């Protein structure tokens, strides 16, 4: 089982131009996603960030429950003072989420990192 350090390594959490960028690994699974959320929230608790980018470019498949976990993570980030941006969802996942009529008001959806950075700069914290 991966521990928090492994998750952080596998998921590549980094800082970029004032953003905390957390790239999801392709196959985190429910437990891995839970630990991923824990690591992100720990980073936010230690250092205040205005924006967190959850980069999904490596994720090929995402079910409704995993999306719900990410939506919850967006809400928790908001409570810690950071706006959450979900970037680079692939078309297949987007179609699944739309057909399942899922919503995540605490997440902002972006094409890529540049889009997320642009939105983060334009929006008040």
């Amino acid at each position, binding site marked *: 089982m991966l521990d928090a350090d492994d998750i952080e390594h596998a998921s590549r959490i980094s800082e970029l131009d004032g953003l905390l960028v957390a790239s999801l690994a392709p196959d985190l699974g429910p437990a891995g996603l839970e630990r991923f959320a824990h690591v992100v929230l720990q980073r936010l608790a230690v250092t205040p960030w205005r924006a967190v980018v959850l980069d999904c470019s490596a994720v090929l498949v995402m079910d409704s429950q995993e999306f719900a976990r990410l939506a919850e993570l967006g809400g928790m980030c908001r409570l810690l003072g950071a706006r959450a941006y979900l970037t680079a969802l692939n*078309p297949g996942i987007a179609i699944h989420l739309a*057909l399942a009529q899922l919503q995540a008001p605490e997440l902002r959806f972006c*094409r890529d990192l540049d889009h997320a950075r642009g939105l983060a700069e334009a929006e008040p914290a």
Partner: protein
Amino acid sequence: MTPDDLLGLFSITETDLAEVAGAGVVLDEHLDRIVERWYGWLRSQPGAMRHFTSDEQLDRVRRQQIQHWRVFLRGRVDALYLRQRQHIGQVHASIDLPNDIYFAGVSQFLAFITECLHELRPNEMAANVRWTTAIAKLMLLDTYVVIDTIATIARDKIALHAKAVMEMSTPVTPIWDSILLLPLVGIIDSTRTADVMTKSLTKIAETRARVFVLDISGVASVDTGVANQLIKITRATQFMGCEAIISGVSPSIARTMVELGVSIGDIQTTATMRDAFEMALKRIGKPL
């Protein structure tokens, strides 16, 4: 299906095939006469001869037909025989032979064979009945193979046309840098929605479009179902980080949606495509 599968399906036994072969021995030298009589019947059918463009062609088909009945009356159903019948089905499909003529023709041929057997063996009534019963069973199998081939060709054509129509009905087009347009025309159902979503989102991913304009001025009618499908399409584009605008909302569509209580949430809508285009340009920071 294999020859054995078909024989089993039509309850044709080895005994039946032997009966057919037995009749074949008796009928062989009379086949020319039966086929000639059959063409006499065909000539009397309105429009049936239009499928023959010349006397040479008619002679050729008649010779092939005699050869077919000779093979048929051997009472052997194997893969080669089925392929030949499938080929006949392909020919019938290509000349668009009407099913009524084909079925009536098969029925008429059976009647001529039956009469011929009774003429040739007037004192063998019981054997004649057994032979004609076995021939009729094999004719049904034979006819099924031909018709099934025609139906398969028709189904393939329909599927091909449906695919072509589907391709033409989802023209996702970049109309400006970072702006995609999809003019929807016709009927929107769940199958079409899935196709529209797949093509639109793939295009959005390819072009990294920032705005997606969905023009519904050509949609036949909008009810709760259609509205929900449109909302799903726009939600999917939003998940990709692309802003969606629905244009071409007529007063009657607006009234219908409000009366049906359809909530469009934060989706942008405009009455005309021009308004949508203007809005899209503003979104990408290039106002008119």
